[in-house]
């Protein structure tokens, strides 16, 4: 099993009450997780331009710091992502217009985000998607959580000398959209100089490790055990039949 860094505990708590350095790190991580969901939600809901939505997104994250919104979050009343959506709904766009465009770029340049990719994905989705703004927010949030978990799993595999495990995982589970079918285990074994049995075992282990990485990320992005469990079920569980 790949060794992951110790789970850092709730980023929400650290961002709301930690020392200055920890608070800054936690806010950065929260922004990384929520930038794309908030941006996409604003674009879907308010039909704003890219520049306006990026500015509003930046204002939202500035508000988390300046207005102490995180300190007011009560996990017994709502999930964090629901709370964030409510905050975004309450934003006063006119107030921001008056502030000018000094923060254009949405602060995303400070984060490891591919803003152009987020923008292009929104514009492609907006043309064809029937999603509500809330559904778009949920989808982007899930994408953020999984993307962070993939990065974490990749780093753990590199550190532990398990590059083959990550390569097999990537070939089978990440790069599938480039091909209509998932690769055969025999082909993966040939490509990586191993056996099909080893591919089976490596992929099973990779999924266990990746599942753990997702849960670690989720634990950091939630503020209570109950919220963590609810989010884990929403993200990883089977949807109840309609």
């Amino acid at each position, binding site marked *: 099993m790949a060794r992951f860094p110790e789970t850092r505990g709730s980023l929400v708590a650290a961002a709301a009450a930690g020392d200055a350095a920890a608070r800054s790190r936690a806010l950065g991580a929260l922004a990384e997780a929520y930038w794309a969901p908030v941006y996409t939600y604003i674009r879907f809901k308010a039909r704003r331009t890219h520049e306006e939505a990026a500015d509003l997104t930046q204002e939202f994250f500035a508000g988390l710091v300046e207005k102490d919104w995180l300190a007011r979050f009560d996990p017994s009343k709502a999930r964090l992502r629901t709370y964030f959506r409510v905050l975004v709904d309450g934003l006063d766009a006119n107030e921001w217009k008056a502030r000018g465009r000094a923060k254009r770029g949405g602060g995303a340049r400070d984060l490891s985000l591919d803003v152009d990719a987020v923008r292009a994905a929104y514009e492609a989705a907006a043309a064809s998607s029937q999603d509500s703004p809330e559904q778009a927010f949920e989808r982007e949030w899930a994408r953020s959580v999984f993307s962070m978990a993939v990065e974490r799993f990749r780093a753990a595999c590199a550190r532990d000398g398990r590059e083959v495990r990550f390569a097999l995982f990537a070939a089978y589970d990440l790069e599938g959209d480039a091909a209509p079918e998932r690769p055969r285990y025999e082909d993966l074994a040939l490509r990586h100089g191993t056996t099909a049995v080893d591919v089976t075992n490596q992929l099973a282990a990779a999924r266990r490790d990746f599942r753990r990485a997702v849960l670690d990320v989720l634990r950091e992005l939630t503020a209570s055990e109950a919220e963590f469990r609810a989010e884990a*079920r929403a993200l990883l569980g089977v949807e109840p039949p309609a």
Partner: protein
Amino acid sequence: MRLSDDALSRLRESIRDPDLSGTRYRLVGPVGAGGMGAVFEAVDEPLGRRVALKVVDVPLDGEEAAAALLAEARVLAGLEHPGLVPVHDAGRLADGRAYYAMKLVRGRRLDEALAGSSLPERLRVFLRVCEPVAFAHASGVVHRDLKPPNVMLGSFGEVLVLDWGLARPVAGAADASGTPGFMAPEQAAGRPVDARADVYGLGALLDAILRVPPAPARSKALDAIVGRARATEPGARYAGVPALAADVERLLDGGRVEAYEENVLERVARVVKRHGVAVGLVATYLVVRGLFILLRR
């Protein structure tokens, strides 16, 4: 990195699906979700039969969910009844999740299956729901989560009570888990419950069955049965499921139900309806006899 929609959906599947390596089962796909777990269809390879696997749906740390799922399996395994799904096997998967294997039931949930059916049909199905619940009570188990999604009508007419995840021994169960609207007040308050909590649940279930569109007309007697089953105080309900079922049977047979005090006119109307031919013959006889007496004078 930004994951594509395809990659995201593939990853979600990969970590949602149970890891069946090292087991006798081969995964077919997800079937649905229950109170505490997800249900997957799988093939039991040595026997070549389809089964349902209930698996803790989220691989969380801690043993609480696993212990609860295995407790549910043990409860079900201890209850052998045609109205209950038989359990074949239970254990742990390679990914650490607890699971149990049971008979795969194909059918529809109760409220969907009863859409468009007549009142007598609905009541007869309800009586068949009562049977396994009464059996469980006799075996010392109370279900505590009776509601339409937890009752299935199989393809061959079988009625099955599912999802025993909240089941507890009849005496002493005390936590506030359950489904609002179907959960007895004492259960919602976290007080100890007994079989009468399921009487309440069955009353709510009967009410739900009767509301499935197009909803049939409900008599005052039927409303009284639902009302007694759903009484706020456990002591005001039927003493047990057999008493509730007996009242519903009396209603179906045109008899006088215990839950409703009828007046004279209602009694006459019920008797006429129940014994229509006999009453008609007696009435005809009396009229003819009366005419005969008049003519003789």
